[in-house]
């Protein structure tokens, strides 16, 4: 009798891992779903303000145009003519991508126009220009 009670209670001598496992797997699923693998340009620019700026949930290919005219994409500086090839490659990998051009407020509009044309030539028509909405962010 004594020995049998010892056998019955011997299972719960440690911490029950099942709730922790459930919690961890839920967290894991959350992060897998929210991961979007954004291609970041790698530089910060001074974005213009726009009160009608809307969030672009699909915008995960970011191209930065700096004040000096440098174009940054996928964490390196690129030339205008390289953009088309890169866009074509990304477009094959993920066809529903859209492009956000993050242009400095003092950059030249001609460069932004060239970048926009190159993106469209690369096959992505969904191009927007980044702006800061009134609430910031």
């Amino acid at each position: 009798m004594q020995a049998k009670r010892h056998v019955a209670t011997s299972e719960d001598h440690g911490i029950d891992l099942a709730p922790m496992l459930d919690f961890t797997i839920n967290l894991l699923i959350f992060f897998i779903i929210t991961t979007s693998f954004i291609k970041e340009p790698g530089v910060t620019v001074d974005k213009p303000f726009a009160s009608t700026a809307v969030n672009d949930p699909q915008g995960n290919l970011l191209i930065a145009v700096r004040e000096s005219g440098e174009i940054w994409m996928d964490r390196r500086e690129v030339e205008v003519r390289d953009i088309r090839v890169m866009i074509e490659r990304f477009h094959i990998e993920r066809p529903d991508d859209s492009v956000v051009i993050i242009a400095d407020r003092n950059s030249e509009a001609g460069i932004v126009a060239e970048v926009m044309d190159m993106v469209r030539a690369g096959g992505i028509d969904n191009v927007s220009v980044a702006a800061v909405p009134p609430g910031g962010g």
Partner: protein
Amino acid sequence: MLGRRRYASHEPESHGIDLAPMLDFVINLLIFFIITAVFVKESGITVNRSTGVENPTPSDAESIVIQILPNGDIYVADRQVDVQAVQANVQRMRAVSPESAVLIVANTRAPTGVLVEVADEVRQAGVYDVTFNTTE
């Protein structure tokens, strides 16, 4: 037999699957996804780009033409206006011809900030069909 049962009762935890390796694996995955997660959401405005036409005539009959000069001056229908006045001007011209689209003709050296501000003003005026062009 009796000895075997006693031996089994000393290791009661060996009856299920050992969860520890799976837990290690899951937590590694979790850490990977936490680290790679980027919560950057870019906000922006969408402007159309007219293709095919390299140098459009600014006096396009059907559209409201807004010109931006290299120094940031804004001309709505060949009259210089302030950034804040673009919305009122576009609204007034839309009231005259409601079907007209808006064409922003920016000089290639015009600052992008002004371009975005003008496009924003046009959108505030209720016109979301903004086309953007550049001139030399």
